[in-house]
């Protein structure tokens, strides 16, 4: 295992990106922080700046106005940085697919490493998805 990814495994810092979601996936991501789910026991901490982040938790289909900003966010993140698409909209565009103001799902704009489908996925599913991503690191 490379030193960089080995360092990632124990304590990942996540940044939350919302780009035209209905806000439900965002709330479920926040829910992971609260006492019932408490992702901090896995060493995951939600950070306020993308420059500190190891994993981007992305919610929502990308609107035309947010597409260039999402690209810039990804460029600013220190590599290796993993992208997790959360919810049907982030994975495929979901119910908003085909709208004039949607630039596409996440994998059209930036590379995506894990998909967590659901509308919205439960916090358990989000935690399981991120843990699964970590277990594939080499």
């Amino acid at each position, binding site marked *: 295992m490379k030193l960089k990814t080995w360092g990632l495994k124990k304590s990942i810092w996540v940044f939350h990106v919302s780009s035209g979601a*209905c806000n*439900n996936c965002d709330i479920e991501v926040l829910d992971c922080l609260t006492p019932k789910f408490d992702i901090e026991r896995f060493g995951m901490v939600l950070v306020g700046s993308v420059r500190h982040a190891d994993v981007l938790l992305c919610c929502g289909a990308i609107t035309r106005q947010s597409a260039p*900003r999402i690209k810039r966010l990804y460029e600013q993140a220190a590599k290796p940085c993993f992208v997790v698409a959360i919810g049907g909209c982030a994975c495929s565009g979901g119910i*908003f697919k085909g709208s004039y*103001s949607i630039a596409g799902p996440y994998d059209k704009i930036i590379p995506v490493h894990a998909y967590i489908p659901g509308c919205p996925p439960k916090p358990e599913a989000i935690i399981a998805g991120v843990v699964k991503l970590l277990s594939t690191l080499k």
Partner: protein
Amino acid sequence: MKTVIPIGPYHPLQEEPELFYLTLDGETVVDVDVRLGYNHRGIEKIAESKTWDQITFLIERICGICSTSHPIAYCNAVEDCAGIEIPERAKYIRSIIGELERIHSHLLWLGLAGHFLGYNTLFMWAWKWREPVLDLFEQTTGNRNHYAMIKIGGARRDIKNEDIPAIRKCVDSLVAPLEMITKAAIDDPVLHARLKGVGVLKKEDAIKYCVVGPTARASGVAIDVRKDEPHAAYDMVEWNVITQESGDVFAKAVVRLLEMFESIKIIQQCLDGLEKTKGAEFCVEVENIPPGDGIGRYEAPRGETYHYVRSDGTNCPVRHKIRAPTYVNLPSFKASCIGQTISDVAITLASIDPCYCCTERTAIIDSKNGKKEHLGEKELIRLSQEKTQKIRKKLGNQEGQSPFFLEK
């Protein structure tokens, strides 16, 4: 010297992104401007390409937190257009789901407001008590959010009478923590110093800016669609419209706290109604929607949601217009933010329970030399939290002695 601070458009904590420009003179806000459109998904246009029944699923996804308010308003509009009368049991089901949603939304706001003020204990506790409500949703509707319970002509699925004792027990168990938090918030000297007289929206201004929901009710304007234009089961149960006179952030918090008790009252009475109508039908068959137009309104947790539909007799609407409460409440910042200090802005903007999603990137631009200073969303919240710390020290109230801890 004046400085302009853009707040937004992205913020990791909240709903739709918006961009605020705050013009400052020293530390005092002299002007505020709002830009919208970062979260525009073209829902009204998509609605025109979907059938009447499919639209209920689409508009649930306007906002994840008001995901029952929009379908209720939309179904009211379609039922107004087609002249459909819904069965009594469906009315009770709609009210129960709507009020449960109000409780979880107000708890969510309370937690975020606590976070902005540096009361992270309140954030964790409020969200902890929100969980039983979400579990209840999962039990009765099948999903924690996006319940898909509302259908044109009634409800999509029934609430089983066997589930009623569990719902009753869960709702009753919320009363004690809500009472504790209400008492703690109303008696806490730090919260008084931090929230009273902050972000005041006077009654005249509230009427002038046409604000809705808790924002209007905290300024003494007693408007509530549930009372003014009763639909669902709201005219069949006893409840009160909560108002406060002062119009500051404190009043808005109190209105929301007390509204949760009214919601619990409504749910209990609706559950009685469900018990009485056991086995009755909960949805009428809708064949087609005749040409014409209809208007539907519902009191969402944030205020009045308004839907307009126009039908030409086919299975899709020709036009679907939506007006959400935050859009109406935003201009009131012109009255409530101006004259405040920058550290009070975070909570004042949050006080209308907006989709104040925007302080991920804050740049301070000095208008004289054009120098830019970038602040994160954390900076703004930090300013707010530091002010609370200062007040705490002044009052001799250390974090360990906060009433939230004393209660238990």
